[in-house]
Every structure is written in C-alpha cells, then in structure tokens.
C-alpha cells in the first residue's frame, strides 16, 4: 500500500507549554499557563486521532534545536531514552523521554534525500540526546508517545549563502520526505516545529506562568504573524513560501530553520485552507498551531514528490 501524509502541522515548541501541562516526565511543576495554545494542541489531537482512518502510524518532526552543520540528519536507532534539559529554560524543561523511532522511514528519507542531491546522515549514537524542540512538539501532539517518530535535524550551512538557498534545500527535503512516506506504506503526520515571530522579552516574570506579563512583543510583529496566518487560512501556501525570507528577517522568524517549507513542500504546496487551532504568545514570541488536513482535503494523494 502506498503511504500517505494525513496532515501537516505548524507545531511550535515553547517548552513553557510542556511545563504548564505538568506531565509526570517533566521535573519542574507549574500552576498552568498559556492555555490558549495548550487547548489549541488539544483541538489538534482531536482532529488527528478522532477519525480511526486518519490516525497516524508515524509522526515526523523537524526541529530547529537539533542543529547540524553538514547535511540533514535523521535518528537511526529504534529507541531513545534519557533526560532532555532545555539549555535556555532549564528551570522549565527537564524532560525524561522514552521515544520510539521509525528507523525504516528514517532510512528511506536519508536515501530519498540523497536522490535529491542533499547530504543526509543517519544518527546512530545511542547516547544522543533528543532536543527539547522535537520533544515538545511531539509531546503536545501525542502525549502518550505511543506512535514512533522520525526526527530530522536543521541543517544550518545553506544559510551562509542566503535564506533563499536554505529554503530551496528544504523544498527538496520535503519532496524526498513525501516519496519516502509513499514508499513506506505508512500514514504520517508532519510537524514543522517552529514558532512564528520570534522576538522575545529579555527577562521573565518571577512566576514564569504569570499570564499578566504575557503579550506579543510588539504590534508590528503581531501584524506580520496575522499576515502569514491569513495566507495559511486562505490556502495560499505558495505565496506564503515566497514571503518567508522577508518574514524571517523582519520578525526574526524561527521558520528560518526551514521546517515550514519542508512540510508544505512535502504536501506539495496545498491550495486548500489550513485550520488555525490556536494563536498566542510565549514570552513575547508569536506561536500558532496550524493544521493542513491532508486526509480530508487531498484524499488519495500521497503528498508531493510525484
């Protein structure tokens, strides 16, 4: 059977959302916070898991916090267990993870990436620590971690040249991913683990979850986010991609790491409308949970890379 992408998701990874959820795996405790976004993830989970035919076999995540300088790396061992401490917010995120990896699909992506002319590498060091970005997006999408994942690194090198060169690589990686999924015969969800506008406060309130201190960093940044979300909601993913390099510069956007481009390319730049499950700020950065429901809107399509 040909594999299918059932959804692509813009799935931001502020560790604050894990902290606020108080899962037993996370060491620090909180009084909650950032409900708008957490409830958005709840709506995403409902959308992904409620329909038995839609339920994914594998979750792919591209995180900007696994940074590589040579090529795109994928996790290449079936199981990773350990403690991931966020180097920026260690007081909020110290997560004991236990994660299964779909190595078959990882290998297919590495192979198809090479076919696209990309450098790909398979990470097989058992001591490797999974980054907090991937864990956060995966936890919020599937708190039980009962679905194996494929984690893909962010390759930083093309950005020595320009944002555009970086984006071109990510389009290729997206096509490679779509072909790999088709070959795998699996139903896959793609998580682009990125916030939107990324300018943030340089201090934090005494109680990190003090919501009276939370708001978007500034209005211009908010307008940028809304402009981007509008395109997503109108199904203008090509136009969205064209605007990304400017968005990256103007709003310091984390999409620079390329996850959104990768995901939309794998979906072959859908023209149907995406569903915004939530938008909210975390220490001033803009974050949106947005789903491209490929299962409903592109029935029978394997995604891009035809």
């Amino acid at each position, binding site marked *: 059977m040909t594999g299918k992408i059932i959804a692509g998701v813009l799935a931001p990874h502020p560790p604050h959302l894990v902290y606020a959820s108080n899962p037993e795996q996370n060491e620090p405790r909180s009084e909650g916070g950032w409900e708008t976004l957490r409830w958005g993830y709840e709506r995403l989970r409902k959308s992904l898991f409620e329909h038995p035919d839609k339920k994914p076999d594998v979750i792919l995540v591209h995180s900007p916090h696994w940074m590589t300088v040579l090529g795109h790396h994928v996790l290449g061992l079936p199981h990773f267990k350990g403690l991931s401490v966020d180097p*920026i917010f*260690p007081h909020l995120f110290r997560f004991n993870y236990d994660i299964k990896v779909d190595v078959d699909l990882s290998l297919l992506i590495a192979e198809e990436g090479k076919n696209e002319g990309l450098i790909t590498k398979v990470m097989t060091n058992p001591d490797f620590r999974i980054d907090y970005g991937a864990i956060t997006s995966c936890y919020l999408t599937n708190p039980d971690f009962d679905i194996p994942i494929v984690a893909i690194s962010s390759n930083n090198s093309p950005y020595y040249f320009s944002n555009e060169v970086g984006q071109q690589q990510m389009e290729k990686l997206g096509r490679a991913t779509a072909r790999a999924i088709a070959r795998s015969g699996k139903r896959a969800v793609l998580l682009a683990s990125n916030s939107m506008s990324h300018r943030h406060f340089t201090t934090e309130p005494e109680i990190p979850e003090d919501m009276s201190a939370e708001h978007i960093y500034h209005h*211009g940044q908010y307008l940028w986010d809304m402009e981007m979300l509008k395109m997503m909601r109108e199904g203008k993913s090509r136009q969205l991609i064209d605007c990304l390099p400017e968005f990256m510069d103007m709003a310091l956007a984390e999409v620079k790491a390329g996850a959104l481009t990768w995901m939309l390319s794998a979906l072959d730049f859908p023209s149907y409308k995406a569903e915004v499950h939530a938008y909210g700020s975390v220490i001033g950065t803009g974050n949106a949970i947005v789903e491209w429901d490929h299962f409903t809107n592109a029935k029978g399509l394997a995604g891009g890379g035809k």
Partner: protein
Amino acid sequence: MKSEVTSKSPSPVKTLKTPAGSLITACYIVPGLPQPLMASEKNPGWKRLREAMENVRDEIAASDAEMILYFSTQWLTVLGYLFQADKNPKWTLVDHNWHEFGSVQYDFKVDAEFASVYAREVKAMGHYVREVNYRGFPIDTGTVVAQKLLNPTNRLPAAMASCNMYAEKQETLSIGQAAMRAIEKHGKRVAVVCVSGLSSRYHTEEIPFEKDFISSAKDDEWNRKILEILGEGNLEDVSEVAREYSKQANADMGFRGIWWLNGLVGKTNDFTGHVFGYEPIYGTGNGVVGLYPKRAIKSVPGWVNDEADLVERFAKAPPRATAPMPSSANAHASAPSKSAASATSSSALDKIVTFEAPKSSAKASEKNVSSKKAPPPVGPYPHAKRVGDFLFLSGVGPRKPGTKEIPGVQLDAEGNVVSHDVEIQTRAVLENIEAILEEAKSSLKDVVDVQVFLTDMDRDFKTFNRVYGDYFGYVGGPSPTRTTVEVTALPTPICVELKVTAFLGSK
C-alpha cells in the same frame, strides 16, 4: 603572511610569571570543535591542534593559576546570562553534528561560589541571570572539549559562563569586565579561556577528513591577519576589528568571545602574545592563542561602556528607512506608519548605558541641574548647568525618562534603525526639555536659543517644524532664536536632538 601563524611543532612549555598583583595569570583563545579531542587521529592538523591545546594545558599546570574561567561561544543564551553552578556536573555529551565521533563522559569540578559572585555582578548591571544547577544540564561541546583538553584531571576548579547571542559589542565587553570584578571579589588567580573559533564557514559538501582545508581563501587570509595581531599581543586591536572580521570571514558568533575577553582585561593591548597553532576543522578556522599580561590586570574603576560603539553602530543604519510591515498587496494598508509610531524598545536599546549625573562643580557661580523626570545622560554630563543668569541644557533626545526606551523608532534584530517617527520623537524631546527646565524652576517660556540636530533633513524637517510650532512661535509664546542642521549620526538611534539655552534672570 607571518610564518609563526602556521603551527609546525609544539613550542616548549613556558614558565609563566604572573605580573605582581595580577589575578589573571594568562588568557587563552582555543577552538571548541570536538575534532582535536575526539578525532585527532583522522587529520594531522586536528592532531596539531590537540597538541597545541596540550601545550596550553602544561603551561596552565606550571603556572600559579588557582581556577580556570571559560567563556564559550557555543554556550548560547538568548535570555540574559547563565552561569554553571553545579559543583559537580556529570553527563554524557554527544555533539549534535559530530555524533559519529562518539560520546564524551564528563565529570567536572566547578567553583559554584564564583558563579554566584559573577552572576551577582551581571545582575547588578540590570541583566537577567540564572545560576544553573540542574542534573543533566547540557554543557556545550566547546566548554567540554576545552576543559577535557586543558584541565583533564580537574586539577583546577572551573567556572563556566554563557554567551548571549543577541548581545552586541558594548554589552559583551561589559559582561567581560564584570567577570574581572567578580575575580577580584573572589580573590583567586585565574587562567581565562575564551572558547571560540575563527572563521566559521563549514564545508557544505562532504570532504575526506584527511583532506581538510579552510573553506574560503578570504577567510584564511583574515584568520591569519587576526592571528598575527593576536600574536603581537594586541587584543584590543582585534576587538576593534571584530565586526569587520565577522562580516568578511563569518567569524564564530561574531567574534563575541574576543569582546568578552577584551572587556575582562579592561580593553588593552598590553600583552605578549603567542600563537600555538592554526588549522582548519571541516572548513572553519581554528587558532590556539596565549596572551600573557605585561602588567597586573585590574578591574577598571567606574568602567563605562564606550559610547563610541553606539555611534559606530547606529551611524551605519540605513538613512532612508523602509517600511517594516508586511508588504504584500493585501497587507493592512495603514500598518507601516501606525506600527512605526507604536514601536517600542528593542533589545538593542538595552545596550544604551546611562550615567549618574555628575554632582555640581565646586565653583559657586555654577550649578548643575538634573531631573529625575528626564532620561538619564548617556555620558558624564549633567542635564543642565546654570551659569549666572543663564541655564545651558545639554543636548536632549527623545529617550523616555527612567528607561532606555526610545519612542518612535523601530529597530531590526541587529539593532539597525528600520524606521523613525520624527513627530513622536520631537514631542518626546520637548517633553524632556520641559522636565529639565521645570527642575530649574523654569519653563519653555524662558528659552532664548535652540539648536536643532536632525539626522534626515529632507524627510523630517517639515514635520519637525510643525511640531516645533506647537511649542514655540505661537502668538504670545516664546520665540527663541533657532539653528537647524543635519548630522550624520547621533549617539543613540534617534533622529532628533535639541540643544537649548534659557535665560533665568533672577529666578
């Protein structure tokens, strides 16, 4: 090209003589990539780098240093500054990119007390700080590699400080200087290690490890030049060209490590320098450098951040700004100007350093005036000075009183000006002037002369003039003489400054 820049053979271990009274025994710059530690057998250059670092290790061991302080450009923070405060951090490091070289078990001895002292110094400067004492906190590859090679048996306690990736030159220099104050308070002799690479352009294609080379000839040339200057001990000179070097050769984290180091030693060239080695690692440039103080290094009393730096940066801002808002056809039509108007402080503004107003001079005929309601000065000058019947105000900008926030300016991530709103800024300037005059029991009515400085006459004069008219020149209002000139730059990212003189008479 000077030949000593290319390492051939390890130099003999020097017996260092710490200058009398100096708490700094020596400063070192070492690379933080894992190859010298984990894969030195794969490339002769990587091996030479390892040997160079082992030379540094022996030199430190033979010195009277009591502690090693690391500042690594790989320990990046975006929120203030972090300090390692776990007395015994233990974990297994696997590099994000070089995982194929295996894992490094570490078990370090940290001087947590120093972390506290240093954190307190940085906090007192108004920064967010955190002492990190968490099991499993990921110590960066750079610090681990340096510590493993330079202090392999934990003979000396170590201190580890982070690098804020958004901090500019001025802030990074000051964070370095804060380390010197902390060292003095702590009282131990310290070998200072800045973990930083040179040019940081990796090969983007796979190469056989044994065939490594610097990925660009231009980078190589710059690296050699930088090492030549460091080899002469001229740290301050390198710090001054760091920005250009970064632009030209993609220096590691904007060569912030050098700013930190130069700040720590109080911005000086007073060193003897030695280059232990220079080699490529997967296209990047990596040098091992020793800097030996010629005199005792001490913290600088009343250390001030160079305002010159603000001028250097903001003078380069694009003079004719472009609209910062989304520009696609269906963008909110009114967004650009509205948003520029409501623009708020950017982290770049946090770098503006303000001063306590100087106390009045001894002369009885002079009296300094300073107002709590006006923004603190950015240099050692009072808000105003009364001499006889006249009150002379220092140049006044639009910065908001009590803050570093500048109304009506939008900056990009680098702190470059994206747009200005002269109307907002002019009003803010005049409000600040009113506050200062009020402090001297005066008001705008007493103003007899105004000098106006605009950074963009073409764009701003008309608007400025209109707003000015609201305060001066209306029927029955004050009508001071006025001179208006265009200037290339003002010390902070503002577009208007006013210099005012008032006649107080017998008031």
